[in-house]
């Protein structure tokens, strides 16, 4: 649970829902971005995701390091399962 999953912002959904479409370990999911919005979020940005919420904005290099880290720790499958497990939301 301590390890966060990196994801890349595909599109910010709208200002009110505080969410974005994010590509996370190969799947696209809607992720809550309330906690990183003050840092300014745009498509292409990378974020660290924890239990469906983006917790911090990170550099791309850091995102790749974190993905590698999850793999080596044997957590990549769990991360994939977690990301796929986030409920898909009907289009707004």
């Amino acid at each position, binding site marked *: 649970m301590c390890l966060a999953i990196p994801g890349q912002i595909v599109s910010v959904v709208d200002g009110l829902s505080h969410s974005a479409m994010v590509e996370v370990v190969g799947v696209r999911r809607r992720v809550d971005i309330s*906690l990183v919005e003050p840092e300014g979020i745009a498509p292409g940005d990378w974020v660290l995701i924890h239990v469906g919420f983006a917790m911090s904005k990170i550099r791309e290099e850091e995102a790749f390091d974190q993905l*590698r880290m999850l*793999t080596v720790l044997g957590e990549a499958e769990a991360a994939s399962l977690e990301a796929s497990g986030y409920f898909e939301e009907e289009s707004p």
Partner: protein
Amino acid sequence: MKFTDEFREPEVIARTAEEIRRLADPSRHYRLMEVCGGHTHAIYRFGLKDLLPENIELVHGPGCPVCVLPMGRIDDGLSIAADTGVIFAAFGDMMRVPGTHGSPLEHKARGADVRIVYSPADALKLARANPDRHVMFFAIGFETTAPSTALTLMRAKAEGIRNFSVFCNHVTIIPAIRAILDSPDMRIDAFIGPGHVSTVIGCRPYEWIARNEGKPIVVSGFEPVDVLQSIVMILQQMKQGEAKVENQYKRVVPWEGNKAALRAMAEVFELRPYFEWRGMGFISQSALRLRESYATFDAERRFNVPGIRVTDPKAAQCGEVLKGVLKPAQCKLFGKECTPEQPVGALMVSSEGSCAAYFNYEHRKSMVFTNIGVAV
């Protein structure tokens, strides 16, 4: 999606390990506690202990949310699941943790409606999708997870959702560190500070550890190089007779933390006067509960729970292991009655639990060294 299974920096690892050997005073013994379970997992996975001189001992801390939850709380949560109108939702980590009458998964096998969710927001979606049922989210986690629960509750309140509640087991890391420092059977020289908890709380809350207790603390990333560099920073402080808070994980952890996350937590939660931790007993102001303004979402107020304190199976020594007094393999049940397949204690369930980490990696040292490409 596939990533390379190698670390790119074996020479940096070797150089940092060499630096540690150079800095460590051979005439003394160092006890360094890694607070976070994620670090424990990484330390065992990469065999980092074997890169350290013998007089540097790594002590595993209490930072595994599944591990520190006492059995009575699991029983209380599951007692609510006995109501057929209730959907019990929890993270996958919780599913195999034993309660007095079995784990959440075993309750599911006996007919309770137990669902795995990967986000508190998904528990709320379950409530929206099942208006005739009540969805109770069994919340666990340190400050990394608590803001997500808080935001979910803020949303539930804004939408006026009535069939959703949270059984709140969120705990806070600082009082646990204080309890460890106050414990007479513990002697810790310095701390490797938690990484992702600190993205939320920042580095300031640790200042008393340096100032009042005279212990260095270095907030650390999770890669082998991160952990080793943090140990270098600790040793440098100790060598110079200093004690301060340093941030090795600057690329992710801002000194001030995440203000939006702290605001959400303050809106929804207040401190409990005390809370029981497995193996550590009752620690004052160490956990969160829902504020009065969120009372209708508080499962503990909505449902009657037994609230009985349950002690761990006598033979299991989870408490001593959690406090770092015993190493996992020193527990009488380790690897015999208690294994990752048949866990007796929670430390054997979670991959961040020191027992599971020790069990899974300690006997595979040779493999680990091939992977990170370091010759010792």
